[in-house]
Protein backbone atom coordinates (compact mmCIF):
# COMPACT_ATOMS: atom_id res chain seq x y z
CA UNK A 1 0.00 0.00 0.00
CA UNK A 2 3.09 2.16 0.44
CA UNK A 3 3.43 3.36 -3.11
CA UNK A 4 -0.10 4.63 -3.54
CA UNK A 5 1.18 7.64 -5.45
CA UNK A 6 3.32 5.60 -7.82
CA UNK A 7 0.46 5.01 -10.22
CA UNK A 8 0.28 8.67 -11.15
CA UNK A 9 3.93 9.63 -10.85
CA UNK A 10 6.04 10.31 -13.90
CA UNK A 11 8.23 7.48 -15.15
CA UNK A 12 8.57 8.23 -18.82
CA UNK A 13 11.29 5.65 -19.37
CA UNK A 14 8.85 2.79 -18.96
CA UNK A 15 6.48 2.72 -21.92
CA UNK A 16 4.38 -0.04 -20.34
CA UNK A 17 3.01 2.58 -17.97
CA UNK A 18 1.42 4.45 -20.82
CA UNK A 19 -1.12 1.67 -21.27
CA UNK A 20 -4.46 1.79 -19.61
CA UNK A 21 -4.11 1.87 -15.83
CA UNK A 22 -6.42 -1.12 -15.49
CA UNK A 23 -4.15 -3.54 -17.34
CA UNK A 24 -2.06 -4.51 -14.28
CA UNK A 25 -5.21 -5.48 -12.43
CA UNK A 26 -6.29 -7.85 -15.19
CA UNK A 27 -2.88 -9.46 -14.98
CA UNK A 28 -2.93 -10.02 -11.24
CA UNK A 29 -6.64 -10.86 -11.01
CA UNK A 30 -6.56 -14.66 -11.57
CA UNK A 31 -3.71 -15.31 -9.16
CA UNK A 32 -5.01 -12.93 -6.51
CA UNK A 33 -8.51 -14.38 -6.76
CA UNK A 34 -7.24 -17.95 -6.33
CA UNK A 35 -5.03 -16.99 -3.38
CA UNK A 36 -7.87 -15.06 -1.73
CA UNK A 37 -10.28 -17.97 -2.12
CA UNK A 38 -7.83 -20.78 -1.46
CA UNK A 39 -5.60 -19.34 1.26
CA UNK A 40 -7.06 -16.21 2.82
CA UNK A 41 -10.68 -17.34 2.89
CA UNK A 42 -9.83 -20.60 4.71
CA UNK A 43 -7.85 -18.62 7.28
CA UNK A 44 -10.82 -16.31 7.85
CA UNK A 45 -13.13 -19.29 7.98
CA UNK A 46 -10.90 -20.90 10.61
CA UNK A 47 -11.49 -17.79 12.75
CA UNK A 48 -15.22 -17.98 12.10
CA UNK A 49 -15.56 -21.69 12.82
CA UNK A 50 -13.63 -21.29 16.06
CA UNK A 51 -16.70 -19.58 17.55
CA UNK A 52 -18.95 -22.58 16.88
CA UNK A 53 -19.09 -26.04 18.36
CA UNK A 54 -19.33 -27.94 15.11
CA UNK A 55 -18.85 -31.71 15.01
CA UNK A 56 -18.34 -33.97 12.02
CA UNK A 57 -21.54 -35.55 10.81
CA UNK A 58 -23.79 -32.72 11.97
CA UNK A 59 -25.12 -29.78 9.96
CA UNK A 60 -23.24 -26.59 10.52
CA UNK A 61 -26.60 -24.81 10.89
CA UNK A 62 -27.22 -26.80 14.07
CA UNK A 63 -23.82 -26.02 15.55
CA UNK A 64 -24.21 -23.84 18.67
CA UNK A 65 -22.41 -20.50 18.87
CA UNK A 66 -19.98 -20.73 21.77
CA UNK A 67 -18.25 -17.36 21.58
CA UNK A 68 -14.77 -17.47 23.04
CA UNK A 69 -15.36 -20.68 24.95
CA UNK A 70 -13.02 -22.71 22.73
CA UNK A 71 -10.22 -20.26 23.36
CA UNK A 72 -10.80 -20.31 27.10
CA UNK A 73 -10.82 -24.10 27.03
CA UNK A 74 -7.61 -24.06 24.99
CA UNK A 75 -5.71 -22.09 27.64
CA UNK A 76 -6.35 -24.85 30.16
CA UNK A 77 -6.09 -27.75 27.74
CA UNK A 78 -3.14 -29.95 28.67
CA UNK A 79 -3.23 -31.72 25.32
CA UNK A 80 -2.74 -28.50 23.39
CA UNK A 81 0.13 -27.45 25.62
CA UNK A 82 1.65 -30.88 25.34
CA UNK A 83 1.62 -30.76 21.55
CA UNK A 84 3.14 -27.26 21.63
CA UNK A 85 5.82 -28.62 23.94
CA UNK A 86 6.42 -31.57 21.59
CA UNK A 87 6.71 -29.13 18.68
CA UNK A 88 9.22 -26.97 20.56
CA UNK A 89 11.32 -29.95 21.60
CA UNK A 90 11.14 -31.37 18.09
CA UNK A 91 12.15 -28.01 16.61
CA UNK A 92 14.97 -27.61 19.10
CA UNK A 93 16.54 -31.01 18.48
CA UNK A 94 16.05 -31.19 14.73
CA UNK A 95 17.08 -27.64 13.91
CA UNK A 96 20.10 -27.51 16.22
CA UNK A 97 21.42 -30.88 15.07
CA UNK A 98 20.72 -30.16 11.39
CA UNK A 99 22.35 -26.73 11.63
CA UNK A 100 25.35 -28.07 13.54
CA UNK A 101 25.94 -31.00 11.20
CA UNK A 102 25.09 -29.09 8.03
CA UNK A 103 27.31 -26.10 8.86
CA UNK A 104 30.26 -28.14 10.16
CA UNK A 105 30.24 -30.44 7.17
CA UNK A 106 29.93 -27.47 4.83
CA UNK A 107 32.94 -25.76 6.45
CA UNK A 108 34.99 -28.92 6.08
CA UNK A 109 33.94 -29.70 2.55
CA UNK A 110 33.36 -26.32 0.95
CA UNK A 111 36.25 -26.44 -1.52
CA UNK A 112 34.96 -26.72 -5.08
CA UNK A 113 35.76 -30.17 -6.43
CA UNK A 114 35.10 -32.13 -9.59
CA UNK A 115 31.86 -34.03 -9.47
CA UNK A 116 30.28 -31.71 -6.90
CA UNK A 117 27.06 -31.63 -8.92
CA UNK A 118 26.64 -35.40 -8.53
CA UNK A 119 26.77 -35.04 -4.75
CA UNK A 120 24.44 -32.04 -4.82
CA UNK A 121 21.91 -34.08 -6.77
CA UNK A 122 22.10 -36.89 -4.23
CA UNK A 123 21.74 -34.51 -1.29
CA UNK A 124 18.44 -33.03 -2.47
CA UNK A 125 16.85 -36.43 -3.10
CA UNK A 126 15.38 -36.76 0.43
CA UNK A 127 13.49 -33.51 -0.15
CA UNK A 128 12.06 -34.65 -3.46
CA UNK A 129 10.67 -37.90 -2.07
CA UNK A 130 7.02 -37.64 -1.06
CA UNK A 131 6.62 -37.14 2.73
CA UNK A 132 4.28 -40.12 2.77
CA UNK A 133 6.98 -42.29 1.23
CA UNK A 134 9.58 -40.93 3.67
CA UNK A 135 7.25 -41.88 6.51
CA UNK A 136 6.70 -45.37 5.07
CA UNK A 137 10.41 -46.06 4.51
CA UNK A 138 11.34 -45.10 8.05
CA UNK A 139 8.38 -46.91 9.52
CA UNK A 140 9.79 -50.03 7.90
CA UNK A 141 13.34 -49.35 9.08
CA UNK A 142 12.16 -48.69 12.64
CA UNK A 143 9.75 -51.63 12.63
CA UNK A 144 10.16 -53.70 15.80
CA UNK A 145 9.93 -57.09 14.08
CA UNK A 146 11.37 -56.80 10.57
CA UNK A 147 13.07 -53.39 10.84
CA UNK A 148 16.69 -53.12 9.77
CA UNK A 149 17.62 -50.83 12.64
CA UNK A 150 16.81 -53.42 15.29
CA UNK A 151 18.75 -56.05 13.38
CA UNK A 152 21.96 -54.04 13.18
CA UNK A 153 21.66 -52.84 16.78
CA UNK A 154 21.30 -56.51 17.68
CA UNK A 155 24.65 -57.24 16.06
CA UNK A 156 26.34 -54.86 18.50
CA UNK A 157 24.46 -56.34 21.43
CA UNK A 158 21.54 -53.95 21.81
CA UNK A 159 18.17 -55.54 22.56
CA UNK A 160 15.45 -55.03 19.94
CA UNK A 161 13.33 -51.98 20.73
CA UNK A 162 9.71 -51.21 19.96
CA UNK A 163 10.79 -47.90 18.42
CA UNK A 164 7.41 -46.52 17.46
CA UNK A 165 5.60 -47.90 20.51
CA UNK A 166 7.57 -46.10 23.19
CA UNK A 167 7.13 -42.38 23.83
CA UNK A 168 10.82 -41.46 24.01
CA UNK A 169 11.96 -43.79 21.26
CA UNK A 170 9.17 -42.65 18.92
CA UNK A 171 10.18 -39.04 19.52
CA UNK A 172 13.76 -40.00 18.73
CA UNK A 173 12.53 -41.70 15.55
CA UNK A 174 10.76 -38.62 14.17
CA UNK A 175 13.76 -36.44 15.04
CA UNK A 176 16.12 -38.89 13.35
CA UNK A 177 13.98 -39.04 10.21
CA UNK A 178 13.82 -35.25 10.00
CA UNK A 179 17.59 -35.02 10.37
CA UNK A 180 18.09 -37.50 7.55
CA UNK A 181 15.77 -35.48 5.35
CA UNK A 182 16.96 -31.94 6.04
CA UNK A 183 20.65 -31.98 6.99
CA UNK A 184 21.77 -32.40 3.36
CA UNK A 185 19.73 -29.34 2.43
CA UNK A 186 21.36 -27.15 5.09
CA UNK A 187 24.71 -28.52 3.94
CA UNK A 188 24.05 -27.49 0.33
CA UNK A 189 22.84 -23.97 1.01
CA UNK A 190 25.66 -23.23 3.45
CA UNK A 191 28.21 -24.44 0.90
CA UNK A 192 26.56 -22.25 -1.73
CA UNK A 193 26.84 -19.32 0.66
CA UNK A 194 30.47 -20.02 1.54
CA UNK A 195 31.51 -20.40 -2.07
CA UNK A 196 29.91 -17.07 -2.91
CA UNK A 197 32.03 -15.18 -0.36
CA UNK A 198 34.44 -12.66 -1.89
CA UNK A 199 37.91 -14.22 -1.93
CA UNK A 200 39.70 -10.91 -1.15
CA UNK A 201 38.24 -10.81 2.35
CA UNK A 202 39.18 -14.42 3.02
CA UNK A 203 42.70 -13.82 1.73
CA UNK A 204 43.05 -10.73 3.93
CA UNK A 205 42.08 -12.67 7.02
CA UNK A 206 44.59 -15.36 6.11
CA UNK A 207 47.37 -12.78 5.71
CA UNK A 208 46.42 -11.21 9.04
CA UNK A 209 47.39 -14.53 10.60
CA UNK A 210 43.98 -15.70 11.79
CA UNK A 211 44.08 -19.35 12.75
CA UNK A 212 41.58 -21.90 11.47
CA UNK A 213 39.05 -21.38 14.28
CA UNK A 214 39.30 -17.58 14.24
CA UNK A 215 38.93 -17.64 10.50
CA UNK A 216 35.67 -19.58 10.80
CA UNK A 217 34.10 -17.87 13.78
CA UNK A 218 35.12 -14.26 13.12
CA UNK A 219 35.20 -14.14 9.33
CA UNK A 220 33.24 -16.85 7.56
CA UNK A 221 30.24 -17.46 9.82
CA UNK A 222 29.46 -13.77 10.33
CA UNK A 223 29.56 -13.27 6.57
CA UNK A 224 26.94 -15.94 5.94
CA UNK A 225 24.86 -14.79 8.93
CA UNK A 226 21.81 -13.86 6.86
CA UNK A 227 21.75 -17.25 5.11
CA UNK A 228 21.90 -19.04 8.45
CA UNK A 229 19.19 -16.84 9.92
CA UNK A 230 16.77 -17.26 7.03
CA UNK A 231 17.43 -21.02 6.92
CA UNK A 232 16.73 -21.12 10.66
CA UNK A 233 13.47 -19.19 10.36
CA UNK A 234 12.28 -21.27 7.42
CA UNK A 235 13.01 -24.51 9.24
CA UNK A 236 11.20 -23.14 12.28
CA UNK A 237 8.12 -22.39 10.22
CA UNK A 238 8.37 -25.86 8.69
CA UNK A 239 8.29 -27.40 12.15
CA UNK A 240 4.92 -25.77 12.72
CA UNK A 241 3.66 -26.84 9.29
CA UNK A 242 4.91 -30.42 9.41
CA UNK A 243 2.51 -33.30 9.87
CA UNK A 244 2.62 -35.75 6.97
CA UNK A 245 5.75 -37.71 7.90
CA UNK A 246 4.59 -38.10 11.52
CA UNK A 247 1.09 -38.96 10.44
CA UNK A 248 2.47 -42.00 8.62
CA UNK A 249 5.31 -42.83 11.00
CA UNK A 250 3.55 -42.66 14.36
CA UNK A 251 0.17 -40.98 13.88
CA UNK A 252 1.21 -38.72 16.75
CA UNK A 253 1.52 -41.52 19.28
CA UNK A 254 2.12 -43.33 21.42
CA UNK A 255 -0.03 -41.09 23.57
CA UNK A 256 0.74 -37.63 22.26
CA UNK A 257 4.50 -38.05 22.35
CA UNK A 258 5.05 -37.23 18.65
CA UNK A 259 1.96 -35.12 18.01
CA UNK A 260 3.24 -31.84 16.60
CA UNK A 261 0.83 -28.89 16.71
CA UNK A 262 -0.25 -29.29 13.05
CA UNK A 263 -0.91 -32.98 13.55
CA UNK A 264 -2.76 -32.23 16.78
CA UNK A 265 -5.11 -29.91 14.91
CA UNK A 266 -5.67 -32.53 12.24
CA UNK A 267 -6.33 -35.29 14.78
CA UNK A 268 -8.64 -33.02 16.78
CA UNK A 269 -10.66 -32.22 13.71
CA UNK A 270 -10.90 -35.61 12.07
CA UNK A 271 -10.16 -38.11 14.80
CA UNK A 272 -12.05 -36.69 17.77
CA UNK A 273 -14.26 -34.82 15.24
CA UNK A 274 -14.26 -31.45 16.97
CA UNK A 275 -14.08 -29.14 13.95
CA UNK A 276 -14.84 -25.97 15.90
CA UNK A 277 -12.29 -26.57 18.61
CA UNK A 278 -9.66 -27.62 16.04
CA UNK A 279 -10.30 -24.30 14.27
CA UNK A 280 -9.61 -22.43 17.49
CA UNK A 281 -6.25 -24.18 17.77
CA UNK A 282 -5.66 -23.33 14.09
CA UNK A 283 -6.01 -19.66 15.00
CA UNK A 284 -3.17 -20.09 17.48
CA UNK A 285 -1.08 -21.83 14.82
CA UNK A 286 -1.81 -19.05 12.31
CA UNK A 287 -0.66 -16.49 14.87
CA UNK A 288 2.63 -18.32 15.49
CA UNK A 289 3.40 -18.81 11.80
CA UNK A 290 2.46 -15.21 10.95
CA UNK A 291 4.86 -13.84 13.55
CA UNK A 292 7.68 -16.03 12.23
CA UNK A 293 6.86 -15.08 8.63
CA UNK A 294 6.89 -11.37 9.48
CA UNK A 295 10.41 -12.01 10.76
CA UNK A 296 11.45 -13.30 7.34
CA UNK A 297 9.61 -10.48 5.60
CA UNK A 298 11.36 -7.96 7.79
CA UNK A 299 14.71 -9.39 6.79
CA UNK A 300 13.90 -8.28 3.28
CA UNK A 301 11.09 -8.91 0.90
CA UNK A 302 13.06 -9.82 -2.21
CA UNK A 303 10.28 -8.66 -4.50
CA UNK A 304 10.32 -5.23 -2.92
CA UNK A 305 14.08 -4.89 -2.91
CA UNK A 306 14.50 -5.82 -6.53
CA UNK A 307 11.89 -3.40 -7.78
CA UNK A 308 13.31 -0.52 -5.81
CA UNK A 309 16.52 -0.66 -7.81
Amino acid at each position, binding site marked *: *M*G*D*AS*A*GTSVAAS*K*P*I*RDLSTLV*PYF*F*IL*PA*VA*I*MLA*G*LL*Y*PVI*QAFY*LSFYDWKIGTD*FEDAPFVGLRHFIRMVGDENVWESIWVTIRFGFWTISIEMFLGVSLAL*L*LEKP*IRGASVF*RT*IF*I*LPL*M*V*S*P*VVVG*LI*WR*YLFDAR*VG*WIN*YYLGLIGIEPQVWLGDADLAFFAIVFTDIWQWT*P*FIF*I*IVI*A*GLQALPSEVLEASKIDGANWWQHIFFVKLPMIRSILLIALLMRLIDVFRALEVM*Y*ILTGGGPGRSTELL*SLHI*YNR*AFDTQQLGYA*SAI*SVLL*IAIVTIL*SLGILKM*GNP*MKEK*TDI
Partner: protein
Amino acid sequence: MAARQISNPPGIWGHYGALIVLALITLTPIWVMVATGFKDDVLVQQKEPVWFFFFPTLENYDYIMTRGKFDRYLWNSTIVGVSATFLTLLSGGLCAYALARMEFRGRVLVANSTLLVRMVPPAVLAVPAFAMVINFSLNNDLAVLIFFYTALNLPFAIWLLFGFYKQIPVELEEAAIVDGATPLQVFFRVLMPLMKSGYAVAGIFTFRIAWNEFILALLLTGRTTRTLPVGAAGFITDTGVEWGRIMAMGTLIVIPPLLFTFFAARQIIAGMTAGAVKG
Protein backbone atom coordinates in the same frame (compact mmCIF):
# COMPACT_ATOMS: atom_id res chain seq x y z
CA MET B 1 42.28 -30.88 13.82
CA ALA B 2 42.48 -27.57 15.64
CA ALA B 3 45.99 -26.98 14.46
CA ARG B 4 45.12 -27.32 10.80
CA GLN B 5 46.03 -24.31 8.69
CA ILE B 6 43.78 -22.79 6.08
CA SER B 7 46.48 -23.25 3.51
CA ASN B 8 46.51 -26.97 4.22
CA PRO B 9 43.02 -28.28 3.60
CA PRO B 10 42.20 -31.94 4.14
CA GLY B 11 43.47 -34.13 1.33
CA ILE B 12 41.32 -34.53 -1.71
CA TRP B 13 40.77 -38.23 -0.97
CA GLY B 14 39.54 -37.45 2.51
CA HIS B 15 37.22 -34.91 0.94
CA TYR B 16 35.77 -37.41 -1.51
CA GLY B 17 35.67 -40.10 1.16
CA ALA B 18 33.60 -37.90 3.46
CA LEU B 19 31.22 -36.92 0.68
CA ILE B 20 30.77 -40.53 -0.37
CA VAL B 21 29.93 -41.57 3.19
CA LEU B 22 27.36 -38.76 3.43
CA ALA B 23 25.91 -39.69 0.06
CA LEU B 24 25.57 -43.32 1.14
CA ILE B 25 23.78 -42.31 4.35
CA THR B 26 21.43 -40.22 2.23
CA LEU B 27 20.80 -42.93 -0.32
CA THR B 28 20.51 -45.99 1.93
CA PRO B 29 16.85 -45.56 2.96
CA ILE B 30 15.87 -44.93 -0.65
CA TRP B 31 17.72 -48.06 -1.74
CA VAL B 32 16.03 -50.07 1.02
CA MET B 33 12.69 -49.02 -0.44
CA VAL B 34 13.60 -49.93 -4.01
CA ALA B 35 15.08 -53.29 -2.98
CA THR B 36 12.18 -54.22 -0.70
CA GLY B 37 9.74 -53.58 -3.52
CA PHE B 38 11.41 -56.38 -5.48
CA LYS B 39 11.43 -58.91 -2.64
CA ASP B 40 8.95 -61.70 -2.07
CA ASP B 41 7.14 -61.95 1.24
CA VAL B 42 9.52 -64.52 2.72
CA LEU B 43 12.48 -62.21 2.18
CA VAL B 44 10.60 -59.19 3.51
CA GLN B 45 9.60 -60.99 6.69
CA GLN B 46 13.11 -62.35 7.21
CA LYS B 47 14.94 -60.68 10.11
CA GLU B 48 18.33 -60.50 8.46
CA PRO B 49 18.36 -57.69 5.87
CA VAL B 50 19.36 -58.55 2.33
CA TRP B 51 20.95 -55.60 0.57
CA PHE B 52 21.74 -56.64 -2.97
CA PHE B 53 21.89 -60.33 -3.63
CA PHE B 54 18.44 -61.81 -3.87
CA PHE B 55 16.26 -63.07 -6.65
CA PRO B 56 14.06 -60.11 -7.59
CA THR B 57 10.37 -60.71 -8.02
CA LEU B 58 7.74 -58.58 -9.71
CA GLU B 59 4.88 -59.98 -7.66
CA ASN B 60 4.46 -56.78 -5.61
CA TYR B 61 4.30 -54.72 -8.80
CA ASP B 62 1.95 -57.22 -10.31
CA TYR B 63 -0.34 -56.93 -7.31
CA ILE B 64 -0.49 -53.13 -7.19
CA MET B 65 -0.93 -52.89 -10.96
CA THR B 66 -3.70 -55.45 -11.25
CA ARG B 67 -5.48 -55.39 -7.91
CA GLY B 68 -4.14 -52.29 -6.17
CA LYS B 69 -5.98 -49.83 -8.45
CA PHE B 70 -2.65 -48.29 -9.33
CA ASP B 71 -3.88 -47.15 -12.73
CA ARG B 72 -6.74 -45.20 -11.15
CA TYR B 73 -4.46 -43.49 -8.61
CA LEU B 74 -1.88 -42.74 -11.29
CA TRP B 75 -4.52 -41.19 -13.53
CA ASN B 76 -5.87 -39.03 -10.66
CA SER B 77 -2.42 -37.91 -9.59
CA THR B 78 -1.46 -37.05 -13.14
CA ILE B 79 -4.63 -35.05 -13.78
CA VAL B 80 -4.22 -33.18 -10.50
CA GLY B 81 -0.49 -32.57 -10.97
CA VAL B 82 -0.71 -31.38 -14.56
CA SER B 83 -3.79 -29.19 -14.06
CA ALA B 84 -2.49 -27.55 -10.88
CA THR B 85 0.86 -26.89 -12.56
CA PHE B 86 -0.75 -25.40 -15.65
CA LEU B 87 -3.07 -23.14 -13.65
CA THR B 88 -0.26 -22.06 -11.32
CA LEU B 89 2.11 -21.18 -14.15
CA LEU B 90 -0.49 -19.29 -16.15
CA SER B 91 -2.02 -17.21 -13.37
CA GLY B 92 1.26 -16.94 -11.46
CA GLY B 93 3.15 -15.88 -14.57
CA LEU B 94 0.67 -13.10 -15.34
CA CYS B 95 0.80 -11.88 -11.75
CA ALA B 96 4.60 -12.05 -11.52
CA TYR B 97 4.90 -10.12 -14.79
CA ALA B 98 2.62 -7.36 -13.51
CA LEU B 99 4.51 -7.15 -10.22
CA ALA B 100 7.87 -7.06 -11.98
CA ARG B 101 7.08 -4.66 -14.79
CA MET B 102 4.04 -2.54 -14.07
CA GLU B 103 3.38 0.29 -11.66
CA PHE B 104 0.01 0.19 -9.99
CA ARG B 105 -1.73 1.03 -6.78
CA GLY B 106 -1.44 -1.81 -4.30
CA ARG B 107 1.59 -3.43 -5.92
CA VAL B 108 3.60 -3.56 -2.70
CA LEU B 109 0.55 -4.80 -0.79
CA VAL B 110 0.12 -7.70 -3.21
CA ALA B 111 3.85 -8.49 -3.14
CA ASN B 112 4.00 -8.53 0.67
CA SER B 113 0.80 -10.51 1.20
CA THR B 114 1.92 -13.05 -1.37
CA LEU B 115 5.00 -13.77 0.70
CA LEU B 116 2.99 -13.87 3.90
CA VAL B 117 0.36 -16.37 2.72
CA ARG B 118 3.13 -18.61 1.42
CA MET B 119 3.52 -19.91 4.95
CA VAL B 120 -0.13 -20.87 5.64
CA PRO B 121 0.11 -24.34 7.24
CA PRO B 122 -1.76 -27.10 5.36
CA ALA B 123 -3.33 -28.16 8.67
CA VAL B 124 -5.06 -24.77 8.84
CA LEU B 125 -6.57 -25.37 5.40
CA ALA B 126 -7.84 -28.81 6.35
CA VAL B 127 -10.99 -27.89 8.31
CA PRO B 128 -12.16 -25.03 6.05
CA ALA B 129 -11.47 -27.16 2.95
CA PHE B 130 -13.49 -29.96 4.49
CA ALA B 131 -16.30 -27.54 5.29
CA MET B 132 -16.21 -26.23 1.73
CA VAL B 133 -16.52 -29.72 0.32
CA ILE B 134 -19.48 -30.51 2.56
CA ASN B 135 -21.28 -27.23 1.97
CA PHE B 136 -21.01 -27.37 -1.81
CA SER B 137 -21.24 -31.19 -2.02
CA LEU B 138 -17.95 -31.36 -3.87
CA ASN B 139 -16.93 -34.71 -2.51
CA ASN B 140 -15.19 -36.97 -5.04
CA ASP B 141 -14.24 -34.06 -7.24
CA LEU B 142 -10.63 -33.65 -8.29
CA ALA B 143 -11.30 -29.97 -9.05
CA VAL B 144 -11.21 -29.14 -5.34
CA LEU B 145 -7.76 -30.65 -4.98
CA ILE B 146 -6.51 -28.88 -8.12
CA PHE B 147 -7.84 -25.60 -6.76
CA PHE B 148 -6.13 -25.93 -3.36
CA TYR B 149 -2.83 -27.09 -4.84
CA THR B 150 -2.86 -24.11 -7.19
CA ALA B 151 -3.50 -21.77 -4.26
CA LEU B 152 -0.78 -23.39 -2.14
CA ASN B 153 1.79 -23.13 -4.93
CA LEU B 154 1.00 -19.68 -6.29
CA PRO B 155 2.94 -17.59 -3.73
CA PHE B 156 6.19 -19.44 -4.33
CA ALA B 157 5.69 -19.61 -8.10
CA ILE B 158 4.99 -15.87 -8.30
CA TRP B 159 8.03 -15.15 -6.21
CA LEU B 160 10.26 -17.36 -8.37
CA LEU B 161 8.92 -16.07 -11.70
CA PHE B 162 9.23 -12.49 -10.49
CA GLY B 163 12.97 -13.01 -10.17
CA PHE B 164 13.18 -14.43 -13.70
CA TYR B 165 11.22 -11.52 -15.22
CA LYS B 166 13.54 -9.09 -13.49
CA GLN B 167 16.49 -10.63 -15.31
CA ILE B 168 15.05 -10.01 -18.77
CA PRO B 169 16.08 -6.65 -20.24
CA VAL B 170 13.12 -4.33 -20.70
CA GLU B 171 14.21 -3.18 -24.19
CA LEU B 172 12.61 -6.17 -25.88
CA GLU B 173 9.20 -5.27 -24.55
CA GLU B 174 9.67 -1.64 -25.43
CA ALA B 175 10.42 -2.58 -29.01
CA ALA B 176 7.35 -4.81 -29.18
CA ILE B 177 5.14 -2.10 -27.75
CA VAL B 178 6.44 0.42 -30.25
CA ASP B 179 5.42 -2.09 -32.91
CA GLY B 180 1.91 -1.99 -31.50
CA ALA B 181 1.80 -5.21 -29.43
CA THR B 182 -0.81 -5.45 -26.68
CA PRO B 183 0.29 -6.36 -23.12
CA LEU B 184 -0.99 -9.92 -23.58
CA GLN B 185 0.91 -10.29 -26.83
CA VAL B 186 4.04 -9.05 -25.10
CA PHE B 187 3.46 -11.56 -22.32
CA PHE B 188 2.79 -14.59 -24.51
CA ARG B 189 4.75 -13.92 -27.71
CA VAL B 190 7.75 -11.89 -26.59
CA LEU B 191 8.46 -12.99 -23.04
CA MET B 192 7.13 -16.56 -22.86
CA PRO B 193 9.98 -17.98 -25.01
CA LEU B 194 12.56 -16.18 -22.88
CA MET B 195 11.00 -17.42 -19.65
CA LYS B 196 11.29 -21.11 -20.50
CA SER B 197 13.75 -21.95 -17.73
CA GLY B 198 11.82 -19.88 -15.19
CA TYR B 199 8.61 -21.71 -16.00
CA ALA B 200 10.46 -25.02 -15.92
CA VAL B 201 11.70 -24.43 -12.35
CA ALA B 202 8.35 -23.14 -11.11
CA GLY B 203 6.64 -26.04 -12.87
CA ILE B 204 8.87 -28.65 -11.24
CA PHE B 205 8.18 -27.23 -7.77
CA THR B 206 4.45 -27.02 -8.33
CA PHE B 207 4.17 -30.47 -9.83
CA ARG B 208 6.25 -31.98 -7.05
CA ILE B 209 4.01 -30.56 -4.34
CA ALA B 210 0.82 -31.54 -6.14
CA TRP B 211 2.19 -35.02 -6.82
CA ASN B 212 3.47 -35.64 -3.29
CA GLU B 213 0.82 -33.92 -1.15
CA PHE B 214 -1.00 -36.25 1.19
CA ILE B 215 -3.02 -34.69 3.97
CA LEU B 216 -5.48 -32.62 1.90
CA ALA B 217 -5.74 -35.43 -0.63
CA LEU B 218 -6.61 -37.86 2.15
CA LEU B 219 -9.36 -35.53 3.30
CA LEU B 220 -10.78 -34.38 0.01
CA THR B 221 -10.76 -37.54 -2.11
CA GLY B 222 -13.07 -40.51 -2.12
CA ARG B 223 -12.86 -44.05 -3.41
CA THR B 224 -12.62 -43.06 -7.06
CA THR B 225 -10.54 -39.90 -6.71
CA ARG B 226 -7.68 -41.10 -4.50
CA THR B 227 -4.20 -39.95 -5.50
CA LEU B 228 -1.04 -42.06 -5.32
CA PRO B 229 0.16 -41.01 -1.82
CA VAL B 230 -3.29 -41.75 -0.38
CA GLY B 231 -3.29 -45.09 -2.15
CA ALA B 232 0.15 -45.97 -0.77
CA ALA B 233 -0.88 -45.09 2.78
CA GLY B 234 -3.93 -47.29 2.30
CA PHE B 235 -1.73 -50.38 2.33
CA ILE B 236 -1.03 -49.83 6.03
CA THR B 237 -4.49 -50.28 7.46
CA ASP B 238 -5.59 -53.80 6.49
CA THR B 239 -4.28 -56.91 8.16
CA GLY B 240 -0.83 -55.72 9.14
CA VAL B 241 1.48 -53.79 6.87
CA GLU B 242 2.26 -55.18 3.43
CA TRP B 243 5.81 -53.92 3.17
CA GLY B 244 6.68 -55.35 -0.21
CA ARG B 245 3.65 -53.79 -1.88
CA ILE B 246 4.05 -50.49 -0.04
CA MET B 247 7.67 -50.17 -1.10
CA ALA B 248 6.85 -51.05 -4.70
CA MET B 249 4.20 -48.34 -4.68
CA GLY B 250 6.60 -45.93 -3.01
CA THR B 251 9.20 -46.61 -5.68
CA LEU B 252 6.71 -45.83 -8.44
CA ILE B 253 5.60 -42.63 -6.69
CA VAL B 254 9.13 -41.25 -6.40
CA ILE B 255 10.07 -41.89 -10.05
CA PRO B 256 8.85 -38.55 -11.47
CA PRO B 257 10.37 -36.39 -8.70
CA LEU B 258 13.65 -38.32 -8.98
CA LEU B 259 13.73 -37.83 -12.75
CA PHE B 260 13.25 -34.10 -12.24
CA THR B 261 16.09 -34.12 -9.73
CA PHE B 262 18.48 -35.81 -12.13
CA PHE B 263 17.68 -33.52 -15.03
CA ALA B 264 17.28 -30.23 -13.20
CA ALA B 265 19.19 -30.48 -9.91
CA ARG B 266 20.90 -27.15 -10.44
CA GLN B 267 17.62 -25.32 -11.03
CA ILE B 268 15.93 -27.03 -8.10
CA ILE B 269 18.71 -25.96 -5.76
CA ALA B 270 18.53 -22.44 -7.15
CA GLY B 271 14.81 -22.42 -6.38
CA MET B 272 15.20 -23.89 -2.90
CA THR B 273 17.94 -21.48 -1.94
CA ALA B 274 16.28 -18.45 -3.53
CA GLY B 275 15.01 -17.48 -0.10
CA ALA B 276 18.26 -18.00 1.73
CA VAL B 277 21.01 -17.04 -0.69
CA LYS B 278 20.58 -13.68 -2.29
CA GLY B 279 21.68 -13.66 -5.91
